[in-house]
């Protein structure tokens, strides 16, 4: 029979290992319950045909072949994937460029620095519904933005920001970026403030200009913050679709031009905005698995890069 050794009999190394194990348990439990088990559940569900109620029918790989082999479905999948990449591209560009710019400005002794910090961070805790509604009012065909542009004779016809298939997705990406920019600014600012002042002083003494100090001393220290922002944004954009769902509904119009992977999956799982939709949770689970595989290489690369930076 296995008998537990009393703590007194344990060596220092054993105690250390035991402590590590005990410290790992809460994290593993949380990760297992909220991430690993749902992932396994999704994998299992992807082999079934299930409308969300009643018995599920095992269909093997049929959901995957339907998703990837049927032209109607695969067109929607790839359209949603490339549009998600575009959405991610817009958000991450704004986060990194504007985030770094504002963080650098805030790192200097600007007058009213604290007030600016507060202003930049204020949209972050707001609900996406409120931000989406405000954004929609601003860019509406009769909204203030069109009124101003018309008043300045920049446009003769109002612009259909959310009605034009070329501008709808970038407009929504801009709304999301505006709300979440404050978080990037704060992350980059804290990284900038972490730059050792003696390094900067040494650079200045060696005759480096302000730009050279930023380029050669500050930026290399910011890399982990950039990687972290990229990972968080990627996870957010590839898994969520709150803004598109709020503004355009699961239809993701006009003509799927705002369809991203989240809306495609939601529409497949719960149907369209008319509320009469067919639920196909098995196919939606298959989409979830395909999304995971599609973003896996980028996630692994970024995770490894982040570990190397440590």
């Amino acid at each position, binding site marked *: 029979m296995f008998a537990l050794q009393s703590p007194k009999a344990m060596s220092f190394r054993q105690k250390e290992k035991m402590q590590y194990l005990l410290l790992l348990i809460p994290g593993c439990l949380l990760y297992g319950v909220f991430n690993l088990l749902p992932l396994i559940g999704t994998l299992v569900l992807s082999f079934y045909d299930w*409308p*969300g*109620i*009643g*018995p599920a029918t095992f269909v093997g790989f049929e959901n995957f072949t339907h998703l990837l082999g*049927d*032209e*109607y*479905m695969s067109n929607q999948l790839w359209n949603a994937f490339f549009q998600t990449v575009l959405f991610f591209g817009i958000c991450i560009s704004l986060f990194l460029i504007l985030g770094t710019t504002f963080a650098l400005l805030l790192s200097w002794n600007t007058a009213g620095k604290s007030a600016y910090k507060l202003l930049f961070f204020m949209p972050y805790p707001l609900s996406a519904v409120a931000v989406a509604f405000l954004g929609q009012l601003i860019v509406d*065909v009769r909204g203030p933005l069109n009124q101003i542009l018309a008043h300045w004779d920049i446009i003769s*016809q*109002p612009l*259909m*920001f*959310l*009605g*034009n*298939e070329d501008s709808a997705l970038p407009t929504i990406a801009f709304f999301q970026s505006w709300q979440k920019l404050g978080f990037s600014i704060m992350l980059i600012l804290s990284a900038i403030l972490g730059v050792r002042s003696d390094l900067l002083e040494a650079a200045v003494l060696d005759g480096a200009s302000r730009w050279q100090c930023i380029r050669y001393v500050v930026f290399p220290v910011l890399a982990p913050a950039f990687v972290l922002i990229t990972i968080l944004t990627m996870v957010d954009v590839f898994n969520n679709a709150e803004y598109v769902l709020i503004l*355009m*509904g*699961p*239809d993701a*119009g*006009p*003509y*799927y*031009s705002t369809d991203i992977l989240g809306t495609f999956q939601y*529409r497949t799982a*719960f*149907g*369209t*905005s*008319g*509320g*009469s*939709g*067919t*639920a196909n949770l098995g196919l939606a689970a298959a989409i979830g698995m395909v999304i995971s595989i599609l973003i896996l290489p980028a996630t692994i690369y970024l995770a490894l890069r982040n570990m190397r930076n440590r």
Partner: protein
Amino acid sequence: MNIKNGVRTLIAATAIAVAFPMTAIAEETLTIWTWRKQERPLWEAVSKAMQDVNIKVEVFKGVDYNSRLRLGLQSDGGPDLFQGRPGASFIDQYANAGVIEPLAESVDISGISPSTLGAATGSDGKIYGVPFAVQTVQIIYNKAIFERLSIEEPKTLDEFEAVLKKLKANNVTPLEVPGRAGWALAMMSAGLEAGISGDDMAKVATRDEPFTAKGYQKVADTFASWKPYINTSAAAQDYNGMRANVALGDSAMIIDGLWSTSPLSTIAQIEPDAKLGLMPIPGDGGKVYAFADGAYLVNAKGDKRTAADKLLAFTASKEFAQLFADHVGELSTYASGITYKGEYQAEAAQFVANQAQKHLTWKGPFNVQYEEVVGPAYQKFLAGKIDSKGLTAEIEKGFKAKKL
């Protein structure tokens, strides 16, 4: 001795309480789930009419409703009765799960209009519930604009096109279309089918003919010819924005359901004094698209089944139909003998009686797929990416992909 008497009284009172449980003298409270907030006054009236039943109404947003229902019916917190979406595509899912059962003999549906029973019928041909609310899709127009420009209701397509031209010449948007709402575009398409093609849709609606056939192609071609007269920002317009514009008098006409004439709709809320007119979509079809909005269903796994069945039986009665007409302001599914007080109800009731479209697509047997296919195809058309031939080809392609 007084203490002994007191104890005896207490024992006697307890015995009476045990012998006559509270449920026997109290009202039974039943919970009904719906996505239609306009039915709250109706269920208050029903609670008063049925003295032994108290009804608790829980309203959910239409887009979340199906998901809530699936969860609710598989857990303990589900409803005793609920409203289901119309058509076999919905009924089958719940019947297969065993949460709804074919109607009990105690529910007499002989008074319900036979044309609405499809809303409660599964693909096995059995009827599972009591259909409610006949909705009509027609042109709703701003009467003040028509009166100001001395425009009469057009009866033919030629007259309708003349009206479109006159409105445009007077700087009024003739027809407002909500390009962002795929489901509303599907509704519009169904309305056009009835007005423009009518019985020519018979084989298309059963999928014996493709959507590229004459019956639907005529619909697409006619709508394409109206393109110069629809709102320039149609692609950007949402459903409530469309209704707001006709309420404000910026646009003259919309193709919409009868529910938009309700005092609770956006139109009345924006402009309570707005006077609206209803007219069938003019065309060779000569029909008006009419359908039942869904069916009242009993949760077969609920623990108040007897009371729920009793309430369901009441929803099939003439008394309930009159309460529905009076309190909801929509058309009841009861076949005859109902008095409609509202001006719009009475007019729409005439449409249903005289020219209801028989061949349903949207809200018909393949309701769900229709919305998913037709809405995006019209969005593509409004964006100028396809013409009317491309529109019908796109719809047909979508149906084939859905294995229909």
